[in-house]
């Protein structure tokens, strides 16, 4: 034991590298290269957030401007609006969207008929494979005055309106359609966690007289809790990154006030108005907040549940 411990890290690494050289060559190296080439090298482009970048010049040639773009953003009238909308939309997503796949997985776990279970699973996965553009196309036509949603509203005694032009309806539509297209796919990870829960515990609980619901609460849920916590940390870590595609496809000038988030603002500034430096600064600000949130949640989780990303 003592001798093994004396080997330094480098010696062990060397040995390991030699022993599993093909494994490292074919699996670790490509992955490492991927991260270097596509994730770390592009980081150097972030400096244009502190520069006055012009597309016809190289990044090095452009003059430094310090935090000017950040100041511009913080003093812009859209700063609070986009920040507020980003937070509201992701919090709603977290509150309503996060539990959905968990509840679904728990329910599915109770289904005894395996054929039915498989069919339900497949059907719920399907929306995940439908392109966002197509989903938004569906939403747009369903929300139209003569669309499906209005048919339902009228059935329950409401009046028809153009839902996508309404500030009140935008967020519910956005969140609900997100849950619809994502909960089946999102439940996969929980279902796999469920399969590793010790079956003997169920038997013991059954003998002790625990009812089905009690077994679910006291055995199944604690069994997948680490998975839930890890997923939660990652969700909170991306709290500030509401994807822009779906919002871009659904919003209109009339709903900017409730729908315009940081990523759509970055899109408009960067790709529509060609203000690359400014949009990089906004995007960088967004990422910094995300990292802070990630570290914060991770710390809290480590203190409370001993589950941690690192």
């Amino acid at each position, binding site marked *: 034991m003592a001798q093994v411990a004396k080997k330094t*890290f480098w010696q062990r690494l060397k040995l390991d590298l030699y022993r599993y050289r093909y494994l490292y060559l074919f699996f670790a190296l490509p992955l490492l290269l991927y991260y*270097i080439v596509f994730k*770390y*090298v592009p*980081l*150097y482009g972030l400096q244009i957030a502190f520069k006055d970048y*012009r*597309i*016809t*010049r*190289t*990044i*090095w040639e452009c003059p430094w401007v310090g935090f000017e773009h950040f100041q*511009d953003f913080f003093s*812009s*009238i*859209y700063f609070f609006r986009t920040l507020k909308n980003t937070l509201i939309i992701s919090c709603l997503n977290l509150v309503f969207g996060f539990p959905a796949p968990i509840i679904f997985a728990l329910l599915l776990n109770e289904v005894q008929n395996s054929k039915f279970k498989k069919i339900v699973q497949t059907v719920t996965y399907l929306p995940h494979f439908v392109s966002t553009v197509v989903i938004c196309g569906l939403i*747009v036509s369903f929300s*139209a*005055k003569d669309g499906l949603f209005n048919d339902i509203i009228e059935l329950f005694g409401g009046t028809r309106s*153009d839902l*996508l*032009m309404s500030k009140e309806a935008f967020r519910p539509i956005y969140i609900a359609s997100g849950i619809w297209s994502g909960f089946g796919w999102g439940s996969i990870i929980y279902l796999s966690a469920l399969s590793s829960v010790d079956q003997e515990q169920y038997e013991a609980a059954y003998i002790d007289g625990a009812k089905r619901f009690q077994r679910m609460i006291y055995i199944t849920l604690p069994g997948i809790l680490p998975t839930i916590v890890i997923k939660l940390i990652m969700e909170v870590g991306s709290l500030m990154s509401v994807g822009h595609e779906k919002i871009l496809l659904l919003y*209109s*000038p*009339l709903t*900017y*006030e409730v729908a*315009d988030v940081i990523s759509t603002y970055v899109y*408009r*500034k960067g*790709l*529509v*108005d*060609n*203000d*690359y430096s*400014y949009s990089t600064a906004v995007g960088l600000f967004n990422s910094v907040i995300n990292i802070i949130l990630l570290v914060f949640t991770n710390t809290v989780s480590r203190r409370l549940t001993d589950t941690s990303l690192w």
Partner: protein
Amino acid sequence: MKKRLIALLMCALMLIGSMACSSGETSQNDSSAAETSQAQEQSTADSAGDTSQAEDSQAEAEVGGEATYPLSDEPVQLSYYIRINGAMSATMETYADVEFFKYLEELTNVQIQWDHNTSDETFSMMIASGEYPDMINWNLGNAAGGVPALLEDEVILDLTELMPQYAPAYYEWMQANPEENRAFMLDDGTLYQFVNFNANVETKDIVYFKIKGPQIRQDWLDQLGLKMPTTTDELYDVLVAFRDNDMNGNGDTTDEIPFAIGKGTTQLGVIAGSFGTRIDMHNDPENPGTIVYGPITDNFRKFLEYMNKLYTEGLINSDFAVQDSSLSFITQGLAGFTVDSMGSGLIANHDNLKLENEKYNYVSVPWLIGPDGYQCNVDDNNANPRGTAVTTACENVEIALRWLDYAYTDEGSLLSTFGIEGESFEWVDGYPTIMDEVKTNDSGWSEEQSISRWMLGSINYPNARDYRFYEQMNLNEPYKGEIQDNWNLATEDITMPPVVMTTEENSTYSNLMADISTYVEAAYNEFIIGERSLETDWDAYVQSVIDMGIEEAIACKQAAYDRYQQR
């Protein structure tokens, strides 16, 4: 231990990263610097070599400076970034398949490598990469920083001195049409692009066609015994009648859309013209020469009052702010009145509807007169034209210019518009007539697709397009008599000419306007649907646009406009 490892790993990664990019960067720098200096040397050498010549034969150069074909004994390759027209991309991969270009290659011995992968993104990528094709055809004025930045940063060549030498035909057109010449140059007289225009080769005049304007269902008017509306008030009455009657005869009086509007500014903008304003910067109709920002003027308020009335009374489609285009209402035969460009797509739709309903008749309406008597044209035909520039990467500037110039010579104008004599057109009583064989085909192609195999007449390609093309094509119905008369009627033109802002003005302006236009767009839509009240919220709205810095943005445009006037 673990921490140190991570730290080490990070260091290694960063080192590798920075080494990789810095080395890549410098080598790229060197090569691009070498390229540009080479190109510069060449262009200065060219112009230096030619100035002495030019001085002797300046008169000659201005009228002729004839090219001799082929342009080179050895085959020359040039690359060309240009959008492929929709009708053409349906039937061919590149423009190399057009008979005119086959002929041109034979004539000039210049082979073109066509790059049709065009979009705002690929354009930006191309500029950022520093690897340019020899020629670029794009809306250069819309590039980041505008044309001045492209010249300053040595992307495109300044052609002011080269054009009279190597593009005499184009230069002659510009000299003969000073108004267009002014629109296509920079403030200091710099020439940099070749643009497409409709040409009368005999008189050397540039001819304009209006293709966008108000349109109405004449058969609905006839059905109700109504007159063609001439003012916005009359339009209102007509729309009310369209709403209250079962125009399409399906037993349902509610499904007609009296005025079909799609999102964006196309349809709204034209109605704004009747109130003497635009949804953008424009020339103040009261004080021509003063630039105002339309959406905060009193005229705009009146326009919004009118639109609000139409919306509240159900005269426009209620989803106008999210509806992609008014076209779907037209194709369903539900739209009574709309504003659109009479492109070939719309014409085809009209033709289909005519097959179903023989009475169906969609006709052009003269620009409507507003309550204050304005009848402004807001069709911006020539704002920021798409043009071809030669880049600094081009090693055969002379050949490139001569090659581009061919399409502006009398012969080139004819052949580029009509294709090959005897194959796609023939002279009938001294009139170039497109042959019927070319218009029809067995492949199920439309007429436009079919003729595009031979000629460039229907597309926006930099040539002097023979205007006689439009006189004989069905697909271009809007170019004919009545429509042109109606849409040329507008009394005042409040549209901005294609002014050019300096790099600084451009960056100030686009920074301010990006935020302002987002705000304004939301606001005017809210005014129309009544979420904001024109009585109580208007002043606050105007004030906040002023607070966002609109004055500074107007000043930028005004300065550019003043320089334009002095060109």
